[in-house]
């Protein structure tokens, strides 16, 4: 049953973007008589400005995270925390991914690839890692891009809330997988 759901959703998702690209102009031109070409160009103009505006925020966040990863501080942090988290049933194998996920998309993808290569696709570590991957986001990157695009410098409680959500996603991934697969 689940196999069919996956096949179905994957099939549907292939058609979503083409459908939007034809459906929205269709609704605009044929039903509402909007000058769709002119509207499109008018809207598209903003793409350039927004992309340029996020550069300073991206540089600030990505440089700090890049330095942190390169220094080996991450490994140090993990070696301190791993024994503590092991007590509550958190496998040390999944700890690097849990910490990397909010920081870096490419970094966490690399760590997940390692899990697959090392333990195979049927191991509990890979399953936990994949669930983590799907239930969390690269919070720092999203914060830099979203707030940077409109020049927000004071982010208030957004970062903490995002990190709490990541922590809940990561812990749920561990316990749900243990519950279902062990």
């Amino acid at each position: 049953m689940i196999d069919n759901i996956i096949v179905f959703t994957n099939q549907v998702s292939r058609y979503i973007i083409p459908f939007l690209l034809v459906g929205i102009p269709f609704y605009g031109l044929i039903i509402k008589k909007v000058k769709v070409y002119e509207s499109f160009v008018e809207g598209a103009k903003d793409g350039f400005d927004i992309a340029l505006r996020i550069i300073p925020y991206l540089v600030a966040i990505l440089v700090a995270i890049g330095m942190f990863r390169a220094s080996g501080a991450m490994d140090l942090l993990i070696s301190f925390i791993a024994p503590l988290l092991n007590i509550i049933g958190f496998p040390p194998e999944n700890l690097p991914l849990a910490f990397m996920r909010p920081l870096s998309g490419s970094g966490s993808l690399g760590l997940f690839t390692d899990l697959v290569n090392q333990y195979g696709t049927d191991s509990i570590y890979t399953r936990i890692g994949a669930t983590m991957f799907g239930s969390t986001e690269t919070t720092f990157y999203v914060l830099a891009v979203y707030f940077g695009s409109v020049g927000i410098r004071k982010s208030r409680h957004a970062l903490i809330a995002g990190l709490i959500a990541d922590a809940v996603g990561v812990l749920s991934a561990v316990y749900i997988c243990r519950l279902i697969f062990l």
Partner: protein
Amino acid sequence: MLNYIWFGLIFVSVIVGTITGRIDEVTEAAISMSKTSVDIAIGLIGIMALWLGIMKIAEDSGLIQLIAKALRPITIRLFPEIPSDHPAIGSIVLNMAANMLGLGNAATPLGLRAMKELQELNKRKDTATDAMCTFLAINTSSVQIILPATVVGLMGAAANQIFITTIIATGLSTVAAIISVKVLAKMTRFQIKTNDQ
């Protein structure tokens, strides 16, 4: 908050890099990541232009306002301070829909459009509003109902096993995001100070 985390990351990197003898890698990372940042931003221009263009058609034809109105009963609870006829609601809903369907490329332009519209309602242009924080927290909690393409690519058929676990975990993290953002917004240290201009 971000000031201390940002400085903390750089400070710890330089100290640890010195101790572990990886200081050259730290320097190299700083330089290469600054280039990567620009590459990412430049790479966004085309896809941003495409979706912002399509969204402008949706706005001019009244489609966004229609979607915003239809989902108002839900969004009014999450974003009580946004006027019900404001286009920001439409963009937020479309961004979340794109995220749920795993359309990352479409989700970012829609999200940035929503941010722009939220900023129009903002009285202090350098400070995030409650609505912005709520929107961001929900976004960072990942609201995916379709598995990430990268995970499916790496796991192949075995990805089927994690379909249910991912939906439960991502649902819990989204609930946690909404609860924590609403609770934190009431704390005095996160309140917008009216007299520190």
